């Protein structure tokens, strides 16, 4: 080996860029969060303005916090630590800049389109299809830059933080692409390819694992790098970190269905989601303890070092949130908590405590090192910590109290469980108003703390000279430290992989085969296990050698990680795709929407009504007493996207159709408080003024037909005629009730949609679903 040393300069410019973007978007995301929390207390703050209503701003808040705030923070942390862990500069300055500016452009596009009402109607997946494609492309840029850097590494071993980054990149790509598969109807609109239960399952497979692989695994990688650096001591247990990684990768991906407990989702999926959620307790707490115990012998530093304060508190909140998550996944607990503020409290314990505090700790640690200047004010950082901590505690305590109180009230019954104790939904809303206000105060305190961080950062950076980190390496390190290559053959043709494939194959035969095949599969499964054990006993070194080589070969490692996470999704999604189709329904099937109803449904999605109203009556007595017969899968089988919802700030709407006259809906949308005193719902006066876009309907119905919804092959003229006929009938009914509104007004289409909710075709009485049969 040559003894010629060279100085390698890291690309810290892009780290600084992402760091500053984190601060800016953090403020934006939190500011919008405080605004939407205020709107829930004071409806006037919606300003009767379309682009400022809760339904449109809440997606902006969630997307800004997840993708803009945590996203930028994650990229800064990953780029900083990866370069140092592998002793290589980022592979491409161009890709780094493309990644940064591309991501900011995506965020800007989201910030413009979401308030304008361009939405796919799925939580955390609202962005329209052109932005989805941009996200996928920029994510690929990130992945290429990252893996290219790994390929040029001078350190053959991959530290566990890198494992977490790899899992993040491959899993987020898979989740994002599958859940955003859409059929465009225009440049700004599309329908998801999945509908009804399929869409619900895919959505929460994505939604839950966005939390897992966007908000957790990259931050865990950052934790495993920055806490040892800040505490100046290695991670407490490297063995535990390895177990932490594999258990999260194998377990997390299965837990998505716990978001749909007690709904029409098939029981086996609910059981699967609950089982794996409970299993998550162990690895999550293992990781938390590993992070906290890294501070062994350094606890005294917490008194003076704000970085460690933030990181220790963040890991503690991680532990709290990951204790609460499995708890909420128990069906009986979920019956109380789902659709209430308890879930909001749980999410914010993670977002504010875990993500926000890890971000703050990392920023305070990086600022002096990236600008070669001490932090402007440590006391200010300490003040930030205490404001933030008090803010989170107020917020979370308020939401726990609110959620449990409203859940208990909504589920309370009298007369031996036959009558609701609080039949009026508004009563339960009024009961939690003080807690909703406390949430605003808690959130505002947290925001003030973060503003202090921004000021501290500004004063630190002002007049400072940005510096790039360097490391001395041997000139020929790159070539000489290349790890022993595993190759495609070595990756897949080896005892561990062979026996796993054999076992899974026989298991599938056992599960899905007919009698003889099933018996053969059962015997084969047992034999595979016995053979694998005996081979491992006699040739254990071959197994160990493969594993050791895997850890220094990032490509095979990445492929196997991908297979591990993909398996969890496939086992849930494929049976759902195969079995749960409209043609297999045997009891109820929803009517296909008329063109006017379809237009109204798109308005429902545009205004973000799903943010406050569910369309899923659970298989629980209080739900049935309050909203009517429990929802069947077939009643939303043609819904692209599904609209089951995840929160009930207002009542469920699954069977609202026909419950009230048309005029009730018009007055309610025009001024909710005129109909329902004490309501916190925004008013939608523009629905009375705006005209329904009928010209878009042929493309939309064409897309629906392509997705398998049994629409006849109507011409645009036929569509227009059907719209006119139904709209005129509704307008005439409204006029008779005392409201003059044009048939072309959007409110007419929305009323048409709301009035058909809960209508279905009884397949036990007859067969053959069509629009015609309904008409």
């Amino acid at each position: 080996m040559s003894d010629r040393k060279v100085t390698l300069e890291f690309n810290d410019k892009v780290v600084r860029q992402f760091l500053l973007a984190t601060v800016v978007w953090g403020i934006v995301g939190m500011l919008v969060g405080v605004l939407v929390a205020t709107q829930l207390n004071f409806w006037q703050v919606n300003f009767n303005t379309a682009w400022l209503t809760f339904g449109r701003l809440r997606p902006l808040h969630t997307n800004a916090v997840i993708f803009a705030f945590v996203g930028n923070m994650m990229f800064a942390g990953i780029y900083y630590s990866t370069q140092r862990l592998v002793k290589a500069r980022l592979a491409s300055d161009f890709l780094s800049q493309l990644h940064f500016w591309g991501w900011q452009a995506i965020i800007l596009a989201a910030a413009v389109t979401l308030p304008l009402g361009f939405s796919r109607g799925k939580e955390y997946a609202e962005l329209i299809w052109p932005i989805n494609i941009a996200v996928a492309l920029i994510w690929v840029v990130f992945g290429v830059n990252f893996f290219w850097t790994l390929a040029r590494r001078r350190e053959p071993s991959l530290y566990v933080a890198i494992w977490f980054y790899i899992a993040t990149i491959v899993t987020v790509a898979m989740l994002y692409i599958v859940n955003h598969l859409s059929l465009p109807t225009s440049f700004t609109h599309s329908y998801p390819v999945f509908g009804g239960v399929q869409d619900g399952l895919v959505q929460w497979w994505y939604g839950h694992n966005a939390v897992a692989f966007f908000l957790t695994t990259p931050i865990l990688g950052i934790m495993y790098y920055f806490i040892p650096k800040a505490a100046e001591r290695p991670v407490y247990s490297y063995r535990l970190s390895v177990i932490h990684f594999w258990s999260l990768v194998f377990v997390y991906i299965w837990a998505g269905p716990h978001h749909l407990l007690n709904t029409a989702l098939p029981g086996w999926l609910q059981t699967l989601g609950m089982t794996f959620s409970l299993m998550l307790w162990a690895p999550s707490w293992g990781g938390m303890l590993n992070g906290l115990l890294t501070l062994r012998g350094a606890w005294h530093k917490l008194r003076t070092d704000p970085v460690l304060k933030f990181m220790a508190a963040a890991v503690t909140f991680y532990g709290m949130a990951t204790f609460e998550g499995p708890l909420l996944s128990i069906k009986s607990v979920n019956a109380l908590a789902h659709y209430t503020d308890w879930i909001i409290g749980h999410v914010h314990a993670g977002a504010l405590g875990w993500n926000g505090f890890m971000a703050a700790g990392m920023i305070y640690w990086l600022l002096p090192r990236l600008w070669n200047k001490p932090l402007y004010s440590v006391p200010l950082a300490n003040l930030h910590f205490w404001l933030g901590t008090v803010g989170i505690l107020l917020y979370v305590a308020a939401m726990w109290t609110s959620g449990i109180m409203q859940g208990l009230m909504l589920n309370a019954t009298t007369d031996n469980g036959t009558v609701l104790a609080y039949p009026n939904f508004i009563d339960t809303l009024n009961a939690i108003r003080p807690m909703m206000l406390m949430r605003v105060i808690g959130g505002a305190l947290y925001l003030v703390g973060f503003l202090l961080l921004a000021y501290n950062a500004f004063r630190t950076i002002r007049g400072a000279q940005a510096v790039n980190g360097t490391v001395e390496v041997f000139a020929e390190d790159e070539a000489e430290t290349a790890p022993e290559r595993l190759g495609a053959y070595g990756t897949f043709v080896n005892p561990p992989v062979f026996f796993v494939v054999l076992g899974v194959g026989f298991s599938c035969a056992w599960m899905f085969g007919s009698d003889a095949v099933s018996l053969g599969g059962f015997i084969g499964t047992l034999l595979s296990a016995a053979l694998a054990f005996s081979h491992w006993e006699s040739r254990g070194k071959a197994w160990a050698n493969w594993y050791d080589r895997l850890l220094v070969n990032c490509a095979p490692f990445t492929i196997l990680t991908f297979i591990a996470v993909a398996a969890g999704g496939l086992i849930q999604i494929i049976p759902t795709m195969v079995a749960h189709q409209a043609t297999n329904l045997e009891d109820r099937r929803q009517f296909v929407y008329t063109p006017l109803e379809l237009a109204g449904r798109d308005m429902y999605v545009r205004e973000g009504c799903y943010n406050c109203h569910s369309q899923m009556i659970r298989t629980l007595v209080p739900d049935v007493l309050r909203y009517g017969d429990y929802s069947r899968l077939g009643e939303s089988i043609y819904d692209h996207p599904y609209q089951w919802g995840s929160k009930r700030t207002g009542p469920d709407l699954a069977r609202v159709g026909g419950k009230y006259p048309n005029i009730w809906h018009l007055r309610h949308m025009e001024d909710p408080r005129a109909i329902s005193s004490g309501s916190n719902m925004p008013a939608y006066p523009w629905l009375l003024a705006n005209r329904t876009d009928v010209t878009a309907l042929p493309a939309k119905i064409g897309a629906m037909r392509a997705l398998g919804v049994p629409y006849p092959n109507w011409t645009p003229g036929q569509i227009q005629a059907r719209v006119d006929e139904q709209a005129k009938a509704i307008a005439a009914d409204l006029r008779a009730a005392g409201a003059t509104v044009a048939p072309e007004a959007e409110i007419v289409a929305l009323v048409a949609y709301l009035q058909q909710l809960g209508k279905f075709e009884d397949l036990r009485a007859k067969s053959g679903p069509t629009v015609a049969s309904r008409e």
Partner: protein
Amino acid sequence: MFRRLVLEDSVTLVTMVAFITALTIYLAFAWRALRMKRPQITRFENLPFDTPTPAADGGESGRPSGPASASGPSARFSATT
């Protein structure tokens, strides 16, 4: 709810098989992690300290040093610094 009830019943097994498969693979990796040798662990856990980091006060600092005579994790750490 669906006509294909046979398939519905069959897939309930998925929960058990999925659990056993994931647990087996996970236990295999956990076993390997627990069998890691001390020098290997020491090398891995000190990777974040292989690259010197500037001190927070704007000055320079190399690797942090641990007490040479200490036992436990600090001793493992100091062995490589």
